């Protein structure tokens, strides 16, 4: 089987002449020249520095070729070639499609392109695939690995992401060197190098400047190693030490590789030597002994294999079409489908089969599927168990990716349903007992690493492990070879086999009993066939013919008699002892030896063998006998039985054989003596033989007894072995299940402790109740609501006295359970008791079953208090007549009360979110702008007055109080402004200022008037008493008018009131109707009123002294009218005294007369006619009535 297999590590090459040439050029074949290594270097866009550093340390005539693959933006023109070119003497050029890779050249990937290499020639395809499928480094490394084999080197330099990791695996698989960049601390740099390192396939992690030296050493070593290699590329000195290495490895890692294919094993050891930079095999062995971790490294190296999802899709198609339907036929939910994937590596194949099966079964129903995936590589098993795969998922269609994986970061994780189908365990298919009763074994690309003996053993193991009619899938380069008899070929190309049902080989361990049982069965079958034909006419004919035929027996290969025919009695003489059908125990003693001889010959030659020179004693007569052994051939020509016939020899033959002449008498006597002697010797011999035979018989019977006992023991042993195997298989499964259970248990413990900590630490009182209101878990905070103790678990909550008032509990629980809704209640505590917000929701298990309720209570006393306070504050804000405006630190308005709406006219909806600056007038002063300048929040004055603009464009004065809201860290988180419309206040202030000025002026004017009155009065007073009599009433009249003016805030004075104010004191009960007023009452301006009052006072004083009021019957009639027609209306007032004494005109003009006649007209720009008629004084006053105006 091994002949048609290429070693797995040899690079797969495309057929064709070119390929051969390249191969010839590439390496291996020309040992004297240094091998031509092509170095692929991957980095992401930021890797320029690393590239430069690399080439600064790389000599220009090294003979290496370099291909730089960088993540480039498709749109950008790359300067990479030019930039790198500055750091090396080598020619640096952008890769061109079809260019052959030359030594001492540097090639750079062009932008927006995929670069690959085949047959030493670069291939550039454009454009690059879309971003999510673009893995330029992986793509190039993979093609490099396939093209150059162990002459490929890949280097992963700094960069983000995980590109390069998969390609690096390919290089490693094909025997190339893999390097990743480290930081100064010899740990892989994060990003691409770390991702590559995490695969465990990186040979060396080192700083970029050390890489060129490492490359040169590597090549030197490689060259040296090549010198010692034979034509097969393997060091000749290796095989001598191989057993030694195997021993070391077995002792250290517990796995024996001695039965692995030697060439593969040696190649891998050789690679390790290269990586470890050891020159000779003993050196490496020494290194191994000194560095225990190297055993692991070597072990991993042995296990390197590349796997991917649905590798060889055709094989999976065959599996899907031919095997899966057969597996699922007639299987219900109670059945179990068992699959074994030995050598599963990181689990891709197991998951692929799981996907196939799950897709065929559907999400529901179907048999339970157990996929046992095993490998000796425990790291691989760990990775498989994690089920986490790095993008890109090769071989997985987008639909499958969508359905079976969930994306976590850069990785894809297998969905739980798929994961649960698979059981991963470290297990050696060679060393450990196999699984049993399997429906499918998929063992792909494992046998190729093993030698023929181990392959055969493994196939027997699979045969044992599989159920009859179950399936076996092998890798594309693997065949059944020597074990072809165990399986039927289903699909030769895809290596799909079915276990043969009829064959029964128990080689795990080899089962001799089965072998023997099989043979015995065959014998019995033969006999029954013979009996089956023994019937009817045949039987009669045979009976008749027996008279004419010689007697015979039919024996089998064990010399047991199967049939007697004819008169065999004469020839038989059974031995004493246990009954036996063995023909040699039955035959007459003398016939035994001859018979044995011819039977043996007949069986051996398959030809008829006869012997004539025999005789039997019939009575006292010697009867000559011919013994014939006739082999009976079965269909395929082998001898299974033999017929032994006893034929009477013809008498003549016996006589013919007798001597014709009689011997001479002397000789006769001598002959007689000799005959006697012979007879006595014969008798002695006979006795000896008899004795020997009897002993022999005994021995035989004893032996047979032993054999049967042995047989029994064997079968018991066999059964025990079988049971043991099954037990081991089951045990293995149990251990695996146990390991999984253990890890789940750990997870659960962790979760449980998390949960407990959560419960302990949470401030939210939580209580779990089952459907019957029995208490489950609760948090410590709950004890503040119910008098709970640890012993209360399981008791109904209704038995527990509550510290809260919650009578609705019993109604709420069924309500929640029935409608599956959440009930919320606020439980108000008494005066100083806390209030709680209670929330009751159904308790759902992870399986979405409702098993009770969860009660959570949060102390909301504070919150409620805050609510009330907030309500109060909100009411204040809402009812305030001031604008209260909240804003965010960036001056966006966040609240707007009705007062603000009233003052500025904007409704809240229109301003929320707008900038405060909207309130500023467009031409606002520098100060205001400064206040609202950005960033000056903290410097904003607490109180200021300014002008703000309303919605209708008016500018109104406002007094603003600004306050800032700070958090605990004293950072400003908000601000508020209270703006008061001070238009009215400003108006009032202005008015007050005006009034004060006016008052001052008026007081001075008044004082000036009083001064004038005093001066005038004094000038005419003969004495101080006379002055007093005149002056004080004048002052009083003035004061009175001031009183009247004050009534209407110095706006105007009623004319009637003015007149009556002067005259009323003279109209009393003794003198009724002394004063008569005629005319519609008029309002007079203050100036007019003041002047008029002084005039009226002088008239009244005069009337009292000389006129109508001096006599009781005297009257005064005052009439007025408003006369219109001129520019302004005029007032005509007439003072007429009636019934007084005879009037005489005064001899000189006194103050009064002058004031009335001249002053009044002068001041009011009117006309005054004072007539001292004898019947009574008459005074006509005509003056213009200006509209009442501001007093001057």
């Amino acid at each position, binding site marked *: 089987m091994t002949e048609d297999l290429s070693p797995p590590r040899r690079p797969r090459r495309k057929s064709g002449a070119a390929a051969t040439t390249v191969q010839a050029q590439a390496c291996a074949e020309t040992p004297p020249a240094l091998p031509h290594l092509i170095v692929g270097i991957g980095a992401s866009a930021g890797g320029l520095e690393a590239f430069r550093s690399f080439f600064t340390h790389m000599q220009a005539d090294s003979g290496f070729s370099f291909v730089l693959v960088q993540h480039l933006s498709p749109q950008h023109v790359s300067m990479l070639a030019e930039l790198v070119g500055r750091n090396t003497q080598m020619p640096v050029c952008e890769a061109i499609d079809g260019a052959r890779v030359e030594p001492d050249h540097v090639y750079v990937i062009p932008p927006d392109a995929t670069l690959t290499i085949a047959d030493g020639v670069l291939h550039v395809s454009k454009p690059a695939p879309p971003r999510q499928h673009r893995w330029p480094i992986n793509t190039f490394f993979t093609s490099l690995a396939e093209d150059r084999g162990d002459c490929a080197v890949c280097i992963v330099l700094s960069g983000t992401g995980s590109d390069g990791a998969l390609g690096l695996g390919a290089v490693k698989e094909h025997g190339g060197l893999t390097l990743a960049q480290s930081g100064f601390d010899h740990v892989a740099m994060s990003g691409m190098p770390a991702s590559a390192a995490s695969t465990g396939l990186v040979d060396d992690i080192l700083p970029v400047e050390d890489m060129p030296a490492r490359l040169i050493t590597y090549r030197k070593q490689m060259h040296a190693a090549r010198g010692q290699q034979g034509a097969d590329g393997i060091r000749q000195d290796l095989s001598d030490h191989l057993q030694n290495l195997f021993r070391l490895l077995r002792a250290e890692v517990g796995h024996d590789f001695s039965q692995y294919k030697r060439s593969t094993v040696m190649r891998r050891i050789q690679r390790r030597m290269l990586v470890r930079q050891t020159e000779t095999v003993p050196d490496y062995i020494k290194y191994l002994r000194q560095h225990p971790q190297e055993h692991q490294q070597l072990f991993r190296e042995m296990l390197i294999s590349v796997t991917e999802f649905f590798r060889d899709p055709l094989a999976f198609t065959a599996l899907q079409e031919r095997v899966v339907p057969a597996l699922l036929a007639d299987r219900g939910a109670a059945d179990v489908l068992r699959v074994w994937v030995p050598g599963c590596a990181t689990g891709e194949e197991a998951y692929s089969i799981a996907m196939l099966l799950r897709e065929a079964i559907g999400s529901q129903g179907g048999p339970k599927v157990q996929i046992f995936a095993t490998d000796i590589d425990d790291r691989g098993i760990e990775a498989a168990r994690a089920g986490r795969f790095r993008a890109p998922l090769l071989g997985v269609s987008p639909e499958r990716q969508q359905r079976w994986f969930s994306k976590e970061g850069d990785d894809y994780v297998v969905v739980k349903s798929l994961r649960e189908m698979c059981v991963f365990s470290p297990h050696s298919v060679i060393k450990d007992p196999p699984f049993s009763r399997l429906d499918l074994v998929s063992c792909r690309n494992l046998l190729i690493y093993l030698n023929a003996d181990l392959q055969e053993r493994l196939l027997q193991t699979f045969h044992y492990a599989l159920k009859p009619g179950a399936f076996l899938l092998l890798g594309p380069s693997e065949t059944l070879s020597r074990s072809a008899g165990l399986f039927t070929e289903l699909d030769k190309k895809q290596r799909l086999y079915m276990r043969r049902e009829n064959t029964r080989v128990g080689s795990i361990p080899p089962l001799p009993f089965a072998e023997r049982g099989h043979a015995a069965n065959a014998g019995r079958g033969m006999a029954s066939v013979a009996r089956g034909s023994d019937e009817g006419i045949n039987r009669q004919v045979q009976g008749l013919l027996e008279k004419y035929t010689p007697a015979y027996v039919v024996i089998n290969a064990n010399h047991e008699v199967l049939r007697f025919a004819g008169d065999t009695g004469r020839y038989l003489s059974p031995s004493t002892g246990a009954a036996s059908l063995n023909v040699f125990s039955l035959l007459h003693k003398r016939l035994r030896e001859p018979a044995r001889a011819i039977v043996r010959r007949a069986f051996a030659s398959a030809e008829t063998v006869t012997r004539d020179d025999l005789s039997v004693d019939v009575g006292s007569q010697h009867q000559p006998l011919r013994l014939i052994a006739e082999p009976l051939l079965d269909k395929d020509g082998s001898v299974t039985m033999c017929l032994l016939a006893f034929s009477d020899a013809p008498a003549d033959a016996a006589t013919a054989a007798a001597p014709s002449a009689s011997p001479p008498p002397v000789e006769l006597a001598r002959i007689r003596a000799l005959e006697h002697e012979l007879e006595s010797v014969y008798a002695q011999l006979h006795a000896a033989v008899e004795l020997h035979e009897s002993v022999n018989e005994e021995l035989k019977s004893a032996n047979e007894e032993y054999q049967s006992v042995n047989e029994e023991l064997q079968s018991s042993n066999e059964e025990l072995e079988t049971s043991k195997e099954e037990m081991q298989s089951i045990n293995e499964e149990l251990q695996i299940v146990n390991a999984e259970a253990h890890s789940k248990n750990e997870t659960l413990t962790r979760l449980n402790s998390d949960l407990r900590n959560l419960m302990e630490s949470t401030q939210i009182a939580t209580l779990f109740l089952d459907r019957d209101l029995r208490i489950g878990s609760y948090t410590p905070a709950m004890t503040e609501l119910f008098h709970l103790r640890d012993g209360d678990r399981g008791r109904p909550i209704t038995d527990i006295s509550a510290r809260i008032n919650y009578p609705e509990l019993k109604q709420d629980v069924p309500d929640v359970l029935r409608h599956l809704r959440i009930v919320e209640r606020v439980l108000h505590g008494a005066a100083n008791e806390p209030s709680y917000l209670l929330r009751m929701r159904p308790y759902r298990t992870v399986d979405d079953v409702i098993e009770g309720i969860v009660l959570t209570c949060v102390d909301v006393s504070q919150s409620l208090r805050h609510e009330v306070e907030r309500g109060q504050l909100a009411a204040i804000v809402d009812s305030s007549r001031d604008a209260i405006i909240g804003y965010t630190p960036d001056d966006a308005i966040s609240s707007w009360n009705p007062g603000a709406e009233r003052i500025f006219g904007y409704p809240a909806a229109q301003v929320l979110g707008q900038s405060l600056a909207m309130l500023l007038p467009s031409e606002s002063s520098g100060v205001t702008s400064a206040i609202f300048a950005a960033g000056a929040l903290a410097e904003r004055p607490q109180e200021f007055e300014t002008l703000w603009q309303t919605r209708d464009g008016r500018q109104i004065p406002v007094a603003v109080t600004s306050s800032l809201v700070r958090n605990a860290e004293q950072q400003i988180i908000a601000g508020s402004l209270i703006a008061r419309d001070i238009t009215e206040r400003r108006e009032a202030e202005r008015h007050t200022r005006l009034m004060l000025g006016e008052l*001052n002026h*008026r007081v001075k004017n008044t004082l*000036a008037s009083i*001064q*004038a009155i005093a001066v005038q009065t004094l000038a005419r007073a003969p004495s101080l008493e006379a002055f007093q009599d005149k002056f004080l009433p004048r002052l009083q009249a003035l004061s009175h008018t001031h009183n009247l003016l004050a009534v209407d805030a110095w706006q105007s004075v009623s004319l009637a009131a003015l007149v009556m104010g002067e005259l009323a004191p003279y109209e009393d009960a003794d003198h009724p109707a002394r004063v008569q007023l005629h005319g519609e009452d008029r309002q007079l301006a203050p100036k007019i009123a003041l002047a008029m009052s002084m005039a009226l006072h002088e008239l009244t004083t005069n009337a009292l002294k000389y006129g109508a009021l001096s006599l009781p019957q005297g009257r005064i009639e005052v009439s007025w009218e408003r006369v219109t027609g001129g520019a302004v209306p005029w007032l005509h007032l007439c003072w007429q005294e009636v019934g007084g004494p005879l009037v005489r005109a005064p001899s000189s003009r006194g103050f009064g007369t002058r004031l009335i006649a001249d002053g009044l007209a002068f001041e009011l*720009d009117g006309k005054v006619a004072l007539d001292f008629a004898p019947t009574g004084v008459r005074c006509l006053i005509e003056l213009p009535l200006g509209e009442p*105006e501001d007093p001057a």
Partner: protein
Amino acid sequence: MIVLGKLPCVLIAEDEMIVAMMLEDLMERAGYHVLLVARLARGLELAVSEPIDAAILDINLAGQMSFPLADALQQRRIPFMFASGYGREGLPERHRDAMVLQKPYGMSEIKAALHALLANGGQASL
């Protein structure tokens, strides 16, 4: 009363009749010829037509400011002074330098002021 040729003529613009009467008496006793006006219009007429030597102007004449009258007097280079309850701050810029008598004023005060006014041609202030 001593009459020496032509008496100096003083224009008194005052709308307060009592004050005007008092001033009139005072001025006449001091030997001046007095022209009394209570309204601006009348004052303007007199300022143009009469040979006035000096003027005492109340600022507010029945609601009208007497500044136009002051202007007219200034134009004729007739010295004048203001007599007002407002004081100097009630004056417009162009008359800031004019002589101002704060009401109420004493009799000797006004006599001295008027004397100074006539002596200095209104250029000096009190």
